[in-house]
């Protein structure tokens, strides 16, 4: 018989009827594969936080601290006021818009549980550098998101102790999937096969909108660039540069290069190789980096590789919270790529 008899006798949720529970497979005894997880391993991976606050670590953070962190780590995508940049998610605003033509779904207007915001920021943000924030920093950023939604005052401090006191405006805005009651009976009748309508008119055309991507596959391939052996360039190996371009994807969430590049979370990196440290105009560097710059640190291939291998060791307390590149070939490639960015 079933290894899971309790499941079959209990009052099952509505969706059970759709599942094939009639013949649950009979499982053999265990195979003795795998090994017990250690406490430290479970602690490292079991990070999820529940709506009732279970999983929240002790800690606290203020709106004021959160604002500073948010500007540094989040605003490049979410905007200084959590209003969203370009196509990135807006995190604030949108009150009472859910029944409108274009609802604005933000943490304030839509999210039913505050735990979701804490859990997500903690595990998945900042974008491109997940799991780099301390618990207090996460509390502070979530406090600032609440503040930007006018849900708390500017002197508010969020902690594990007052976490459940925060009221989320749309907490009651959700219903469990009711298609089985509202839709399936309506959509399960024998359909009409002949003369089902008097007339058929076209009411809308996609071509009018013209938002479909162009099919460029038929276009002629670009001519191969002519390689002139004579003028061997002194620049970096093109293959290494190409490999570096891929590695740079990991940097691109915070850094820009090339034409029109702007400072984002990190400074513009065009021309960085050979440049003195801390020299990009209008970028707010960490004290740690400014001190090293005064000592005369130059970003050449060697210092860059050392920094990018272990950013926190090379430059303790610096602002770049990137864990570092593990592979030597990635380090060589990224330096070659940066060298090519004149």
């Amino acid at each position: 018989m079933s290894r899971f008899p309790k499941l079959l006798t209990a009052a099952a949720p509505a969706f059970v009827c759709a599942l094939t529970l009639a013949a649950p497979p009979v499982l053999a005894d265990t195979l003795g594969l795998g090994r017990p997880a250690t406490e430290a391993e479970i602690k490292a991976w079991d990070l999820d936080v529940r709506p009732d606050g279970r999983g929240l670590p002790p800690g606290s953070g203020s709106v004021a601290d959160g604002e500073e962190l948010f500007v540094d780590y989040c605003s490049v995508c979410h905007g200084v006021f959590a209003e969203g940049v370009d196509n990135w998610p807006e995190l604030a605003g949108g009150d009472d818009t859910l029944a409108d033509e274009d609802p604005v779904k933000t943490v304030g207007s839509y999210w039913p549980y505050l735990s979701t915001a804490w859990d997500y920021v903690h595990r998945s943000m900042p974008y491109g550098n997940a799991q780099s924030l301390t618990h207090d920093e996460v509390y502070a950023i979530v406090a600032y998101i609440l503040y930007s939604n006018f849900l708390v005052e500017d002197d508010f401090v969020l902690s594990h102790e007052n976490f459940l006191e925060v009221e989320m405006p749309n907490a009651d805005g959700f219903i469990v999937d009711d298609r089985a009651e509202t839709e399936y009976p309506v959509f399960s009748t024998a359909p009409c096969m002949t003369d089902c309508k008097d007339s058929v008119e076209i009411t809308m055309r996609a071509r009018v909108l013209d938002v479909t991507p162009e099919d460029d596959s038929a276009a002629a391939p670009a001519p191969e660039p002519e390689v002139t052996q004579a003028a061997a360039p002194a620049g970096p190996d093109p293959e290494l540069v190409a490999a570096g371009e891929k590695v740079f994807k990991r940097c691109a969430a915070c850094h820009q290069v090339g034409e029109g590049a702007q400072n984002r979370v990190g400074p513009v990196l065009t021309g960085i190789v050979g440049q003195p440290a801390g020299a990009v105009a209008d970028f707010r560097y960490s004290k740690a980096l400014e001190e090293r710059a005064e000592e005369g640190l130059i970003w050449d291939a060697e210092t860059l590789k050392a920094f990018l291998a272990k950013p926190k060791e090379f430059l303790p307390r610096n602002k770049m919270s990137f864990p570092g590149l593990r592979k030597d070939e990635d380090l060589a490639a990224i330096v070659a790529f940066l060298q090519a960015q004149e």
Partner: protein
Amino acid sequence: MSTSNPSDPGRRGFLKGAAAVTAGAATAGAARAADDPLITEVQPWAQSFGDGVDATPYGMPIEYESDVVRRNVEWLTADTISSINFTPIHALDGTITPQGCAFERHHSGAIDLPKEDYRLMINGLVDTPLVFTYADLERFPRENHVYFCECAANTGMEWAGAQLNGAQFTHGMIHNMEYSGIPLRTLLNEAGLDAAGDLADKWVFVEGADASSNGRSIPMVKALDDVLVAFKANGEALRKEHGYPVRLVVPGWEGNMWVKWLRRVEVMDGPVESREETSKYTDVLEDGTARKWTWEMDAKSVVTSPSPQAPITHGKGPLVITGLAWSGRGSITRVDVSLDGGKNWQEARLAAPGTDKALTRFYLDHDWQGEEMLLQSRAHDSTGYVQPTKNQLREMRGLNSIYHNNGIQTWWVRETGEAENVEVS
């Protein structure tokens, strides 16, 4: 095609041959054809060598098929690292999606995770929290199943009306593969579920190893039913973009739950209500309330050819109308096709009987006389559900659901054979 010498007889013959074929198509039918130089002249491929067996240790499609690729819709998302692309369903046939062109959806990019570095943890309300290596997983009894994986947002851009011109873009967030893997219940049993007590109200939380750590809560009932921990697709290792080395397969349920780079399964007494199951993958109704836990993908179908990216190019006469149908609640039992925008319907031919939660291919062999058509298809599944029209769905849900748009699609095929995405009254 290595030569561009215009006097090369092979190439000249090829060009003349192409012209002759085009002319033959224009006159159509049994009219007496001119001699076809592709037949009467010896072709280069019939004279000299092709590639040796070492040319392609792992083969790619031939260059003439280079347009059959996944495509992105740039304006949909802010960044390709957290984005989606689309399966070229307009150009495929049969039901199995080749991995190389099966749509991808990442929340933080497709990661490099070697098998040797892979670990899967089972923890929470289990008797013994366990860690498995990839090699451990290979030693459990394994099953093979074909299932479709459809993003809940497939066709989501069409809620407010016809937007995108191509089956790839309107319906391409879907693929269908044969998975080899271990039933999740086997692994849960290995860790022991006595500690969980009554299983009817228990859940599992599943999460990935990538930086987004996409996590979803799944009711224990489903976890013990047909969920697979898969490491092979279509006979070979999963592709990086589909979660190499191990992903979750949650048959019939929305693609977001099919967690890639699966690293942890936690048995819980309730759902986590993660970002992916509250702020996303919930469906806003007309009055502003939202449905949550809308996991199942309802029955749906689409004509893949002819369609905007696959126009009729052969003139009047025999025409193969074909498409795909699927249901997350069972198997496809029947597909109807309409040539006149839903006024009259006829039953299509299923290439094979529908199977549970997998794609079904249908055909309607038609004698096309150059008439305009408003092509539609309508799926029936084994629960008795019949695919609704888009307007029926809109009446129920309004326009802001984003997800779960399984309404009937219309292609307007013109006298020229070109097709366009339209909506009809």
